[in-house]
């Protein structure tokens, strides 16, 4: 093949329009011992393709690859035995503890609520006058007790202060 032909093929090659056969032709040309000087610059490219295409995996490749993978698999857990594993387990434990705490809390607060099946309407006072009288009585009772308590506290304080007065 002469220079013109090859050059034309090359141009189409770089435009991506060559067929497989034409590419074969190019490869064959560059595999020759004598290449046109003007085409010398393209030689390494096609020579490289030639080498790569003939390259095949040797029989031990699979074994080597598997070995390498296995080795890596062994290495991974080794690497993370330190802080990372502890942290991971700690976070898991914390999550579990949290869920349990939440569940306990819910259970604990729910417990008294479950008992509240009281039908208060049964005991409701429906007569406003009576209700008022009852409320007044209740409030007065509460009020009297508060008063009593504070009066007692007051008299106690007085008692103590007179005692300290005497003891002076």
């Amino acid at each position, binding site marked *: 093949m002469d220079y013109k032909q090859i050059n034309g093929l090359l141009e189409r090659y770089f435009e991506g329009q060559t067929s497989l056969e034409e590419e074969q032709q190019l490869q064959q040309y560059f595999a020759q011992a004598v290449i046109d000087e003007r085409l010398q610059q393209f030689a390494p490219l096609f020579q490289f393709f030639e080498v790569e295409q003939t390259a095949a995996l040797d029989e031990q490749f699979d074994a080597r690859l598997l070995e390498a993978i296995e080795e890596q698999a062994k290495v991974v857990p080794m690497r993370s035995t330190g802080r990372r594993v502890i942290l991971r387990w700690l976070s898991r434990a914390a*999550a579990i503890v*949290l*869920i349990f705490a*939440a*569940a306990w*809390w*819910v259970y604990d*607060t*729910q417990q*008294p*609520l479950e*008992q*509240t*099946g*009281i039908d*208060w*309407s*049964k*005991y*409701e*006072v429906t007569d*406003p*006058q009576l*209700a*008022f*009288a*009852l*409320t*007044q009585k*209740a*409030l*007065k*009772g*509460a*009020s*009297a*007790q*508060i*008063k*009593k*308590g*504070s009066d*007692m506290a007051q008299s106690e304080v007085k008692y103590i202060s007179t005692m300290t007065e005497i003891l002076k």
Partner: protein
Amino acid sequence: MKYFKLMALCGVLLVSFTQAQAQANAIDKYFSQYVDDERFTVVYVSSKMFQLFDRLDVGGLDMDEEESKIVKNIAKDLRGLRILSADEDGLALYKEAKSKISTQEYEVLMTVRTNDGENVDFLIKDNDNIIEELLLLVGGEDDEFALLSFVGRLDLNSIVKLANSMEEDKKKE
């Protein structure tokens, strides 16, 4: 993502339960079995009733005007009054009741023990210094037991005012 959803669910549950809990009162929570007990007299006044008080003409009842004014004023902010009372085992019931009430939730306002064996306890549940519930626990050797639960925004000052007005009445007599 799974964990986030779980956490969110837990959060929602917690919030809903605390809200539900806020609605409850001490009697519902600790003394529900007393309510069905024959020994106890149970009284309940609802918040609707308290609202009626304002328009209620209490002239028919023999009451001091000043007093009923204070009572109406206090009742305005009440959402419920529950009374449990019994005429037997006063001291035992008092002790039982006191041990049941969670001191974490209810704060002791005042404890009085007179020399004739009567115990009176005031407990409050408050939220940001606003009293949400006032519990009055009375029980003693004279076999009387009473548990009063006032639910609502209570003003202790006006309760004390009521006591003072009662005092004045006595003086007048």
